[in-house]
């Protein structure tokens, strides 16, 4: 009896797991399937996951579509530039955040938390006015600065965790050998931080690559649009768009973040876990 009950529980668990797998995985599977279907098939009433014929040319269509490639270029420029800036300014600050206890640390961590609470809608209004006065609305430079600023808190949080993991003894040994602090930082701390920097850089890149709201408000002319904005105009009210190429473009837009998450799976969950619990 008992064994049977246990087997029933196991069976129920597998059924539940299957439901989760379908719920979580099906939408992406459907998107990929749509990206290789012909438009005739996409509009037909016969609905199947496996395409009748494989239409890889949707990808070529998507890339040839006006604006998509140049938007992807804009996205890449903004994401790379803001990633470089984030790392450049966050690296020294995260060191201070991790090593010096007391008021600075408390204020820093406090701000990181507060920045999660307030809605960007409230910030965007004055931000828009400020950027407009200095001519940085509708500009990739302005968007880069904004992305940098809003990625910084979390990047600092990630990096300072990696700094805290480096034994202080190593630095003291370096200092004993006559290095001043900056030399110690450059020769000892930064090289050991390389994996943390890579992780933080990938996070910054993906945040900027995926970002929608600031780009929507700040960018006005289509030649400045980033990829998410261009994709969103395709499904807006203006004109019917071919679904196949749209799906193909969406798959392409999702690739950087999927690559990032499959590489970072374990580490990222650990870092976010720490952040969430302490929050």
């Amino acid at each position, binding site marked *: 009896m008992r064994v049977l009950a246990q087997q029933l529980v196991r069976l129920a668990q597998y059924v539940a797991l299957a439901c989760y797998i379908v719920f979580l995985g099906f*939408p992406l599977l459907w998107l990929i399937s749509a990206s290789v279907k012909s438009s005739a098939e996409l509009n037909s009433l016969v609905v199947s996951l496996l395409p009748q014929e494989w239409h890889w040319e949707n990808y070529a269509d998507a890339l040839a579509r006006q604006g998509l490639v140049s938007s992807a270029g804009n996205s890449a420029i903004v994401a790379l530039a803001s990633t470089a800036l984030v790392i450049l300014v966050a690296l020294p600050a995260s060191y201070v955040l991790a090593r010096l206890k007391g008021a600075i640390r408390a204020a820093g961590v406090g701000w990181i938390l507060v920045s999660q609470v307030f809605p960007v809608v409230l910030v965007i209004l004055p931000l828009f006015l400020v950027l407009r006065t200095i001519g940085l609305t509708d500009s990739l430079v302005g968007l880069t600065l904004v992305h940098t600023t809003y990625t910084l808190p979390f990047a600092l949080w990630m990096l300072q965790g990696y700094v805290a993991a480096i034994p202080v003894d190593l630095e003291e040994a370096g200092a004993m050998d006559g290095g001043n602090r900056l030399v110690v930082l450059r020769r000892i701390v930064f090289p050991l931080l390389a994996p943390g920097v890579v992780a933080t850089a990938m996070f910054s890149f993906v945040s900027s690559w995926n970002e929608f709201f600031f780009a929507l408000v700040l960018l006005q002319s289509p030649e400045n649009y980033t990829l998410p904005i261009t994709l969103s105009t395709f499904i807006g009210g203006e004109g019917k768009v071919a679904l196949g190429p749209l799906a193909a473009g969406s798959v392409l837009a999702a690739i950087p973040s999927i690559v990032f998450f499959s590489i970072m799976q374990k580490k990222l969950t650990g870092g976010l876990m720490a952040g969430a619990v302490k929050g």
Partner: protein
Amino acid sequence: MTVATSSRPPTPVPRQGGRSDRRRAPSGLDRARRREAAALVMPSLLPILVLSVAPLLMGVLLAFTDAELVRRPDYQFVGVDNFVRLAGNSFFWDSFRIGMIWAVAVTLLQLVAALGLAQLLNSGLRLQGLTRVLALIPWAMPPVVVAIMWKMIYSPNAGPLNAFLGSLGLPDDINWLADFSTALPAVIVVGVWVGMPQTTVTLLAGLQQIPAELHEAAAMDGAGAWRRFWAVTLPSLRPILTSITSLNFIWNFNSFSLVYVLTEGGPGGRTMLPMLFTYLEAFKNRNIGYAAAMGVVLVVVVVLLLAVYLRSQLRDDRVETKKKEG
């Protein structure tokens, strides 16, 4: 080192070593270190102050003006006029109500779904690797792509959801995102889908921290799986549950992109989240001051709700500890 400089906070005792004696006087060292720290922090602090803290404060100030989004802005302070007007704006409060339904529903469903998945991932089944990767995919997708994807799923004519319902003999002509009664629930499902990964990995990590002995002891006492869940798992997860629900609630209440791309607030304002409403007021109607007042109201309400929630959680915690002590 015994020189009395009492106002100084205690500095770490230098290690025994020839060189440390020849270092500069401790107070000078302190000051130098502080200056160094400031220099290292400044590059991060500056953009945050200029592009984040200052706009936030200005945003609050804007709420008391009649600012409009025009080329040559000319604002005047109008006191609390915006807030008085807002109190009587039934569209805003409708949107506020929708925002609360959305945030509470998504947060709760996310929690329940993620708790179930985390339990499954923690009970030694096969297919764990696959599920873990799948569980992370929604997290990785750009919100715009998520919206496009679900629009295809919900598509009234050639969408897989309606096809599936049709094959079961159920009505297969529902226009999920455009029907007044189904739009909000349909959008909530997408919100749950997007938010599940983070909640799941957080809860999974929490589950793995619960000592196995606790479960074994409870099982010895004859507690079944269900009882163990209520008596051991939930109380142990409590701090994590509190923090992840608070964060999820804030994130959900503040969310914008997903619903903006899915429905733009339609049909007939049925999915008009407060952030969308505020955005439209600012950038379509061009009333920045009024929109800022909405933003302020939203922040205040969220902070108040959280304060109440966290206080009740704290009180419950204290009651629990007392019970244990008593």
